[in-house]
């Protein structure tokens, strides 16, 4: 599926994994941003990635717990950066360009490099 | 008189609950006795390593201790039998250990059919 094709948000997009142009996993489609208004055409403007995007999707107590553990950051991935969608969302760009992979890179600094074959 | 009969009925009900509740520990002790006998038999035949024999005997004793301390009827005939099993030395003859296990099996079968 290409951007521009009609899409079923829940069945074909929400909660799919996201891979950047280098084939690296960089999150899940946690929510979507729509542009338009009631009575007007709705368009997908961005994918929202991060625990902050769970707010509308979880009960209040569950979101509170999530925020305690993982924070409430949200990365906004403009829909124009999506190349195609199948069993995952493939981006045209590297993850860092759209603010993804930042936690992975921070955590990487904690892992010693060495010893692995 | 009626009060005495009521107390007696409660006591009897309480007593008959005890052995039933202890059935799982009797069964466990029976199995442990039989395992101990099997370990000693195979060890006497030179089929086991020293470490294995020692650690298995230790495990049997530890579990027998747990089973014995879990009994609700510590003065019962099966509690005495388990005590006698625990009093056996580590290298007790297999036949002796099996005799305890067989006695416990008889008690177990008797309680199950009651």
């Amino acid at each position, binding site marked *: 599926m290409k951007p521009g094709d009609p899409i079923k948000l*829940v069945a074909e997009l*929400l*909660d*799919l*994994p*996201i891979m950047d142009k280098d084939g*690296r*996993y*960089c*999150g*899940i489609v*946690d929510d979507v941003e729509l542009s338009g208004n009631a009575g007007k055409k709705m368009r997908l403007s961005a994918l929202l*990635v991060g625990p902050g995007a*769970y707010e509308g*999707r*979880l009960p209040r107590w*569950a979101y509170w717990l999530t925020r305690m553990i993982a924070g409430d950051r949200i990365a906004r991935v403009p829909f124009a950066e999506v190349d195609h969608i199948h*069993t*995952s969302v493939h981006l045209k760009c590297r993850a860092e360009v759209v603010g993804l992979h930042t*936690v*992975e890179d921070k*955590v*990487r600094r*904690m*892992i*010693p*490099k060495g*010893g*692995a*074959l | 008189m009626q009060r005495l009969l009521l107390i007696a009925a409660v006591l009897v009900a309480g007593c008959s609950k005890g052995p039933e509740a202890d*059935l*799982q520990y009797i*069964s*466990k002790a*029976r*199995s*442990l006795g*039989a*395992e101990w*006998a*099997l*370990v000693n038999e*195979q060890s006497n035949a*030179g*089929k*086991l*390593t020293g*470490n*294995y024999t*020692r*650690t*298995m005997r230790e*495990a*049997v004793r530890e*579990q027998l201790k747990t089973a014995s301390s879990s009994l609700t009827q510590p003065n019962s005939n099966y509690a005495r039998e388990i005590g006698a099993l625990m009093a056996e030395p580590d290298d007790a003859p297999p036949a002796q250990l099996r005799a305890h*296990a*067989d006695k416990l*099996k008889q008690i177990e079968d008797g309680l*199950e*059919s009651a």
Partner: protein
Amino acid sequence: MTAVGGFVDISELVFAAKAGSLFGYALIWAFALGTIGIIVFSEMSGRVAAVAKQPVFNLMRHRLGLKLGLLTLAASAISTLITCAAEVGGMGLILHYLTGWPYLAMAIASTAVLLASMWVLPFKWIERTYGLLGLLMISFAAALVSIHAPWGKIAGGFVPHVPSGLSTKQMLAFAYFLVAILSAVLFPYETYFYSSGGIEEQWGPKDLATNRVTSIVGMSLGSLLAISILANSAQLFGPANVGPEIPGSAALEVAIPFGSTGLLLALLGMLFAVAGAAVETCMSNAYAVSQFFGWEWGRHKKPWEAPRFTIAWIACFVVALAMVLTGIDPMTLVEYAVLFSILVLPLTYLPLMLLANDRKYMSQYVNGRLAKSLGWLFFGIITAAAAAAIPLYLLTSGGQG
């Protein structure tokens, strides 16, 4: 590792030996039935991985949604963590029998070796090391041949039946063992590990035949080893009134015909099979969490290339060891692992069925009539088993009677 570590773990060792002693050959069919089920679901999960190019947990969240997906993740993570702790405890016990050194020290040593081997070795070598060494479990099958087992009775055990003349208590215990065996054979971590392993090995549609053969042969071999343990127990332990209560007693099945060499082979086989299962459960949890949240994952990458995945599997081992160090009886961990697992199974296998039936993801490789029928049949069986698990556990005091 699919056959041995994925199949013959501490739970199967314990339940196979007990089932054989208590009920003779009557529960062989439970292993056979569970094996068919795990073959069906493994093949499906491997096929989803090869065709959709996504492991099961990635797509599970997409099918279930966030709320139900989080519930499935939490339930399966807890169940798999308890199983991992049981395996670590099992390794500690087996090393204790081998060396005589203290059990808890051996559990710590086991965890250290597992951590080191998973850090250093790439995925292929992790599989080969634990998988091949676990094949020493074949000593149990050799023991069965050497004690001139009644093959007619063993063959009869493959036919589903309930032994006659059982009391009500024994019937309940039989039912409990049936549910426990199905749970132990169909542990959810096996499919998560298997499908993620397929991605690690970069399976594609050309590997579907490999997937089918690996599922059938691997699981069948594991099942035959577990059935050997059961049959040996029926022949040697049942008539001797041995439960068995101590996990180390299973090794006697090989010591009796083959002496101390057989004992050592059995203990080493058990050690590596249980170690393989410890690795699988730990990696399965790390895969599930990483895939659910979209982190980098995989042991085909160096540890620092998938940092959160690395921390996840290290954390899993550390928590599992902490559970063992509380002093909880490893057999209690085994009971809880089996109980929690059966409760989670319907949640695990339903999204897999939905995915494998979805032509949008699977194109021409979608479930055929046989896979669909068997899949839904086994889904029905595990749902019924899940409903019966807790009542049976309580009524039988965990199979003790």
